[in-house]
């Protein structure tokens, strides 16, 4: 579904991504792990087109590198950024409405589905997005991207700074989404939920992929964890 091949990206003169290659299959949950500065967030931003890509990115067979962010999103990619980017002055309902890409084509997910997935959104539907707690905002931002009916959802640090109860809710939400056949690319540093729910994983370091495997293989490989993950 998503094939990234020899992807490079630059911030000014710094060479951030130095040839990243990986794939995400249909309906698969894939984790992209690594320390801060390893290039995980940049990888996702480059796929979304907010950082100019050098290299090949294919989505459902079509080249999407070089397209503009909204065109990439309309191809079926959903992106949930690390800072959540809730529109603080708009209500929860308006935030969700903005996730809808087209008013003419109906997606798989409706507002009521979102309320069913996370009932608190219904209670707070008319409150400004800015007053929600961090965990509530995280649920809202994931639901907002779902409203756009993505085939692949890329989630950057979904559990960062959340209380254990919220972490469990986020995990449950991601599993429900995956159960509907949507592929998920999850980015995590602390391995809070990634290892438990992903089918396959990649570890990044210094702008490259340094390990590819699954959770069992990563657990077995002490040296990789010590060198690239543990702080």
């Amino acid at each position: 579904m998503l094939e990234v091949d020899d992807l490079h990206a630059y911030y000014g003169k710094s060479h951030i991504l130095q040839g990243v290659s990986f794939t995400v299959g249909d309906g698969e949950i894939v984790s992209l792990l690594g320390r801060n500065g390893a290039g995980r967030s940049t990888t996702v931003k480059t796929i979304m087109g907010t950082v100019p890509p050098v290299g090949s990115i294919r989505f459902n067979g079509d080249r999407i590198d070089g397209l503009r962010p909204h065109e990439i999103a309309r191809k079926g990619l959903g992106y949930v950024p690390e800072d959540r980017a809730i529109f603080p002055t708009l209500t929860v309902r308006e935030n969700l409405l903005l996730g809808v890409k087209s008013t003419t084509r109906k997606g798989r997910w409706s507002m009521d589905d979102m309320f069913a997935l996370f009932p608190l959104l219904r209670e707070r539907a008319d409150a400004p997005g800015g007053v929600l707690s961090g965990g509530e905002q995280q649920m809202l931002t994931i639901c907002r991207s779902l409203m756009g009916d993505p085939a692949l959802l890329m989630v950057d640090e979904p559990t960062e700074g959340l209380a254990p109860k919220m972490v469990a809710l986020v995990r449950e939400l991601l599993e429900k989404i995956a159960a509907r056949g949507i592929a998920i690319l999850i980015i995590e540093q602390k391995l809070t939920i990634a290892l438990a729910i992903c089918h396959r994983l990649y570890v990044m370091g210094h702008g490259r992929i340094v390990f590819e495997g699954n959770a069992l293989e990563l657990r077995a490989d002490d040296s990789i964890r010590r060198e690239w993950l543990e702080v």
Partner: protein
Amino acid sequence: MLELATVSLLNGIVYGLLLFMLTSGLTLIFSMMGVLNFAHASVFMVGAYLSYQFARWVGFWPALVIAPLACGLIGAAIERYGLRHVHKSGHVAEILFTFGLAYLIEELVTMIWGRNAVANSVPAVIDFPLFSLFGSSFPAYKGLMMAISIAMFVFLYVALKRTRIGLVIQAALTHPQMVGALGHDVPGIFVLVFAVGSALAGLAGVIGGFMLLTQPTLANAIGPIVFVVVVIGGLGSLGGALIASMLIGILQTFAVAIDYSLLDALRAAGIAVTRASPLYDFYSIKVATAAPIVPYVLLVLMLIVRPRGLMGKRDV
């Protein structure tokens, strides 16, 4: 006194609404793109000239529609083929670009219509007394100005608060990248906002052209006031722009009408001031004479007391 107050208030509201038409577009553009568009008042001037020209060719009513539309197209072109390319080089380049554009437009206008004011008088169709108040009549064209300004405010409000595209614009004010990532064409929205903002400036130009002299210095005459209004109202706030426009419009109109000086106030308070007193010349300046500086005094006070403006969310 009541007569003076009522007439001044009406004139102040008309002037304030005119300022609002100009500032609403400017503040929308600023809050979305972070660009303080120095050419905004120039587009206003172009609106005044185009309406003058089209009114001579096809009559006033068509000109009232054609001139703002033309200004909207000019605005869209400025964004699409100018600002968008300059944007990469940062804010200084953007500001210099719009600054240069203001000069360019002024020179072009001078080349086409000459250095002197054109005879852009109130068209006969709207030049009749609408009603009279305390013996002085209120002209119909001022009524039309008020009606157009208010209709425009309602249109902007509904468009921003009640439509999907308005939601996208509001969201893009704070998180343009996220709006793009959700599948909305942010650069396209920028062009649209620039076009609508410029069309509003053009519309203000059509009706402002009668009130002020339609000459190449028109942009310079109104530009600074517009920026004062935007800063006082709070950069990026439509509500703030409305309040500040009315405030400055009314204050300035009243100031022009007050034929007293500080000297009169001191004397009324029983303080004797003679020609020999220090600063006598300063005290004897009439408020009406000092009226043009009122907005700037207000600007300085606002920057000291509340740099973010009346309803702004961030400091200037």
